[in-house]
């Protein structure tokens, strides 16, 4: 049974104790999705940068938590602010446009907040960490740790809180249904927009600003293949991500759709089916294209299916979820190839194709399959906001940040590897790192 969406927010005081207990358990499992993606990003980078990559993931999770607690949560407006005010509103064409939250800074009043608000805030803590670490994998092997952390600060303080408020905090996107009769407003229960697309678009901005890895696109000939250094990390990361994603999508369905308990098994099933359909499709596509299935692309396909499920697992039927996963699994490896070979975009982790494109597809599909009139247009407006407002904003902020904290490591640092250059020691000290022929 697909849950029927409420047209108005449910009162926070109505969450029973059993749901609160379930949510706490889910929010303790959900970080496995972050762990899985961190492992995938590390495995897809080079061995000379593995320690820096994993340390970067850890540091980003820590920094985003602090910054979001200090500033971001107030702008996201998840905790109740002044009585009667859920955000800053301006009026245009006779409609209210709630554009930024007005919660208390420094998590003021957290202990006194209703349980649903506290749980929503915890969900956002996980989400902001996830969104901010996605570009880290795309900047692998040339993005300085300090710059990566500075970008995470920007994400946690400005970009994520705005989008989270619009979609989850009763902002103007969430109110499209009330104000413009567009179904139940923009729906993003599992964070496909707020986490995945936002992180994927940040990855695109980072790749554009830092440029490609040295030797990736030689003056003559095709791009140089720079395969990930550990396929076992990548594939095990996929399994970890599945566990976390199941919890993530269920938690999102409960928090943002107020899905009843009997609807949750279908959300789990849909998540699983979407990922399964995606990896089967990617396996087949790469088998046809290259003669053998490609491990890293299959991992990308699996993740693409999970990402797409974030948008729609709680909103579609199992058959539709399988279809969404199959489509994601077909286009993800093809897009990875197009981005690298045709568009000269050096994205080692594939975050742009996996997180941005698959997330957008999931949001589109959830509107396409929605029974409510107007829901499809609401999803399109959400997509238009991410592409037309969030991407230029992220690019502008990162471009300015790059002037203050240069993103790209110097050529010598890139040559010896980020581990030695930034940390003074490698992830695999007993290994002899052989000379890279691409630097001749």
């Amino acid at each position, binding site marked *: 049974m697909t849950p029927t969406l409420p047209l108005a927010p449910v009162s926070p005081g109505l969450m029973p104790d059993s749901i609160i207990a379930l949510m706490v358990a889910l929010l303790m499992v959900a970080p496995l999705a972050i762990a899985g993606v961190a492992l995938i990003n590390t495995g897809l980078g080079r061995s000379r940068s593995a320690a820096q990559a994993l340390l970067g993931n850890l540091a980003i999770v820590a920094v985003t938590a602090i910054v979001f607690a200090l500033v971001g949560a107030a702008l996201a407006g998840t905790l109740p602010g002044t009585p009667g005010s859920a955000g800053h509103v301006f009026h*245009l*064409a006779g*409609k209210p446009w709630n554009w930024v939250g007005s919660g208390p800074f420094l998590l003021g009043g957290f202990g006194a907040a209703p349980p649903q608000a506290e749980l929503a805030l915890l969900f956002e803590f996980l989400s902001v960490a996830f969104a901010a670490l996605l570009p880290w994998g795309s900047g692998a092997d040339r993005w300085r740790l300090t710059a990566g952390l500075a970008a995470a600060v920007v994400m946690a303080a400005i970009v994520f809180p705005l989008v989270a408020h619009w979609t989850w905090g009763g902002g103007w996107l969430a109110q*499209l249904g009330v104000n*413009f009769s*567009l179904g139940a407003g923009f729906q993003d229960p599992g964070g496909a927009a707020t986490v995945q697309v936002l992180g994927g678009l940040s990855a695109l901005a980072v790749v*554009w600003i830092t*440029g*490609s*890895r*040295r030797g*990736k*696109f*030689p*003056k003559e000939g095709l791009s140089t293949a720079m395969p990930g250094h550990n396929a076992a990390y990548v594939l095990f990361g996929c399994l970890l991500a599945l566990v976390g994603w199941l919890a993530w999508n269920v938690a999102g369905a409960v928090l943002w759709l107020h899905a009843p308990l009997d609807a949750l098994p279908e959300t789990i099933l849909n998540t699983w089916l979407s990922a399964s359909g995606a990896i089967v499709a990617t396996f087949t596509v790469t088998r046809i294209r290259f003669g053998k299935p490609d491990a890293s692309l299959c991992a990308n396909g699996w993740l693409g299916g999970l990402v797409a499920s974030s948008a729609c697992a709680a909103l579609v039927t199992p058959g539709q979820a399988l279809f969404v996963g199959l489509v994601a699994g077909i286009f993800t490896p093809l897009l990875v190839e197009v981005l690298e070979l045709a*568009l*000269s*975009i050096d994205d080692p982790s594939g975050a742009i194709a996996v997180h941005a494109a698959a997330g957008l597809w999931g949001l589109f599909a959830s509107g396409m399959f929605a029974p409510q*009139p*107007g829901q*499809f*247009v609401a999803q*399109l*407006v959400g*997509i*238009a*906001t991410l*592409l*037309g*407002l969030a*991407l*230029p904003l992220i*690019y*502008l902020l990162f471009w300015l940040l790059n002037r203050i904290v240069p993103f790209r490591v110097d050529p010598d640092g890139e040559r010896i590897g980020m581990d030695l250059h930034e940390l003074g020691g490698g992830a695999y000290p007993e290994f002899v790192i052989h000379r890279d022929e691409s630097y001749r």
Partner: protein
Amino acid sequence: MRYAGLLVMPAGFFLAIAALILFPAPAPRAAFVLSGLAVEGLGLAVAVRGHMPARGEERP
């Protein structure tokens, strides 16, 4: 060119928002929102092209 593309993208967003305000009927509203998305796609294509290294250019 890279910045021109990124400036075109918000124009597509505002087109989508204008559709919500100007067209209460579902069909023209959806068509206008799709037009906004098309403008964004155009801007994205220009931005991507602008960030591509030119043929024969010294690459990092």
